[in-house]
């Protein structure tokens, strides 16, 4: 028993030492008080680390600014001739090239040209706007490749199945499109295709009872880059496949885009919505203009609507059995008025999202 007691003493000593050793940790719990209670000030203005950039040579532009507190900021690079926009968002106190670097990609179409670009920094919680250095693009980056194009809406002969519930616009448009915004007095939005001359437009003046407005679908066999009855991405890993599109927002703030991947689980060449799975992803459209949207395949979730793809015969997401891509216009619940969006250049990429 004495030995046990001796061991007990030892344990006590070890525990006490362990407590003392574990007493110092430098980290901070919770958001920093400096950011929540401190005054907002711009300590260093927005500046770029180069005045000219050649993206074709692989160059990048890094931006720096220094703020007194950590707050949500938005850096915009705007092509002064093309109107292209790149948006970089963050929440750093010390903005550096590591978090604010521009590689020539866009957030809003069209693509940048060889042009001068204005830069500005704005803040979600403060009205300040910092205008930064102008950057001149002297060389354009090489357009990234995509694995397959579902549709660029350039081919009027491409079969697109459309379906509508309330009265709505649901069509392929070419050239300039004048969208009625159903305001009083009347006003119209002018929409140019993001690329090429064709695009798909969905819109309606809806009432609160309507959540589903209209939809359209393209079979894999009818895709611009057809790989047969089913899309073939070359991988079955949902973490490696991205759906991408250019999506036009009218700024109404109540429109939603739903993308659906419909699986022919029993490989009989038809999709049965009662027994075969549909995997959906939804994007609230809260912007104006053509925005690049990318969704990784594992973010598509099995339908929860009874009789519309909620029963999946295989019980899993099968990327090699997708036979149709569906895109819907939905309205937020209990809203009324104009809803709409435009679509262009629907495509899939593998391993990384499409970054034009």
């Amino acid at each position: 028993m004495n030995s046990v007691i001796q061991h007990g003493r030892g344990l006590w000593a070890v525990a006490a030492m362990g407590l003392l050793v574990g007493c110092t940790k430098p980290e901070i719990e919770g958001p920093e008080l400096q950011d929540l209670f401190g005054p907002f000030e711009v300590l260093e203005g927005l500046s770029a680390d180069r005045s000219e950039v050649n993206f074709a040579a692989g160059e990048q532009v890094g931006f720096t600014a220094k703020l007194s507190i950590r707050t949500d900021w938005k850096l915009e690079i705007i092509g002064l001739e093309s109107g292209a926009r790149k948006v970089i968002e963050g929440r750093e106190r010390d903005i550096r090239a590591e978090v604010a670097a521009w590689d020539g990609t866009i957030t809003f179409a069209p693509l940048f040209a060889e042009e001068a670009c204005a830069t500005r920094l704005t803040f979600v919680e403060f009205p300040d706007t910092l205008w930064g250095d102008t950057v001149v693009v002297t060389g354009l980056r090489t357009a990234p490749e995509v694995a397959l194009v579902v549709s660029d809406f350039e081919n009027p002969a491409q079969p697109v199945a459309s379906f509508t519930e309330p009265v709505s616009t649901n069509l392929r448009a070419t050239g300039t499109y004048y969208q009625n915004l159903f305001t009083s007095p009347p006003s119209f939005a002018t929409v140019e295709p993001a690329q090429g001359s064709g695009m798909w437009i969905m819109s309606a003046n809806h009432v609160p009872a309507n959540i589903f407005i209209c939809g359209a679908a393209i079979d894999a066999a009818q895709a611009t880059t057809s790989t047969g009855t089913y899309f073939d991405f070359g991988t079955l890993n949902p973490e490696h496949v991205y759906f991408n599109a250019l999506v036009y927002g009218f700024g109404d703030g109540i429109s939603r885009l739903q993308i659906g991947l419909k699986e022919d689980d029993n490989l009989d060449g038809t999709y049965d919505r009662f027994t075969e799975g549909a995997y959906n992803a939804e994007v609230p459209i809260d912007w104006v203009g053509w925005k690049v949207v990318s969704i990784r395949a594992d973010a598509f979730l099995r339908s929860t609507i009874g009789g519309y793809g909620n029963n999946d015969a295989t019980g899993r997401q099968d990327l090699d059995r997708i036979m149709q891509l569906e895109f819907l216009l939905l309205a937020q619940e209990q809203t009324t008025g104009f809803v709409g969006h435009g679509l262009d250049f629907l495509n899939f990429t593998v391993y990384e999202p499409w970054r034009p």
Partner: protein
Amino acid sequence: MQHDALGGSVADGDTVTPARVMGGAAVFDFGIRARPDAATEVVAVTRVTSSLDGFWGQGVGFGVRELYARGLIRGVVRYRIGDVDLHLTPLTLSNRNTDLGGGHPEMLRVWSDWIDYDRFYRGGMWRQQGVDADAVLAVRPFDEVAIRGILAKNRGTDYFFTPDRLLGAWEAVGTRDSLRIGYRGVSLFDVPTTAQFSEAATATTVHTVNGSGPLTPHGSWGAEAGISHRSHEGLPEAPEPATAEVAEAWTRWTRPAGAWTFTVRHVASGFRSAGAQSRQVDFGATAATWPFVTNREVVRSLTPADLLQDGGVYRPAIAPGLQAYSPIYRAVEPYGPATPNRQSLTAGFAGKSVAIEAILAQEAVGEGIAERRRMAALQATASHTELLAGRPLRIDGLLRTERTARPGLADLGPGFDGIGEVDWMNARAELGVQWEPEPDAALHAAVLAVTARGTDYLAVRDGYDRITDYTAFDATYTAWLATAGVMYRFTPSSRLNIQYRTQWVDDADAPGTFGWNQWTFLYTLFF
């Protein structure tokens, strides 16, 4: 039965709040104990409540207060099923996180004892519904190993979105001579399949090992250390599963004058132990008497009198998250010994008539700032008995004071100086006198004072206990409560307390000073 009168500047110009209210109830707890066989006992306690206005049966309530069966299976396994009272260790499962705490003079203890009885708080127990079984085995090298298993229902499902929540606990303690070594686990977990439209589930589990034994004939040691683990499923916004540690060690030395205890403890900021961190007082609850005051019907903050006698502000169940607290009453260890983000050294002395506890503590990590809070608490209780006019006179006193300090931001430029600075003090003092002029009669008087001053930053937490913001809490608070009365004992099991109490609260954050005078008549009979 009680009669209350509102006073203070808060009543000036108030044409909405009744200046006087009267209430009360007769409560009858009737227990039935049945023994179907030699190894089984069934206990049922029913409660009949008749409110003061319940003439002709109106306002009468009838319910089952307790129902359980207990017994022995084959002379080996002891069990209790139905209502169970649970307590393991202060770091795993314990119900002692109160605000006014114990150590009251006799006159105030009448009320705190009633709340402990009414809410099943006695002995630091949590009252749950489920099954509790234990057995003692002979396992070498120990003299015996006691094992225990508990499964209880913590929350019921609504069948749609809120799943059932269960509390599971298990324990094994080996004993050899005076050496005890144990392991225990406590888990509070949701059962997602019990809600049709929800796959969300959260589980918080604590595992600890502990040991205790003698050092010398007059000294002993003990230690407990472990981890907590919290995980979420089906909640897209939930944080990643997190593990955090806890450890404490203590030593106790007994001398003729009393016992000294020294404890060193480390509780990580992420340590979550629902059974040990759940708090008794719900500071979001509305008081039973004058829940709103002034013509604008402002919610009245809880006062010491409410904490003393209003059972409605006390929670009945264990909660998975850290609940809000008031630093006016507790700032150093608001969640008891398991308060997260603390490193502390505690020294205590318990003598025959004096008890002292001193705590020196600091945060394990800074909260929103690199600087850590440093805290100190001192609580002293003393009692003295002597004869006055040949009859016993007893004087009880209590003093508890806490201090918290933290430097604020500096050297960050104009506008930042002092942000985050904490300078907080809270204190409570109680003094009670009891004299028995007759063997069955006693005269009582007691005073309770609570004060708090300074600035602290209270963490605002989301549903996952993550700090999302801070509230700068400035207080200048003083509350006085004075009471006097008589107690008459009709028989050894029945007695009548008549008390007059006056309370005055001056809270700079309130719409005015709050006065509350009260007559109470409390008749108790145990049989």
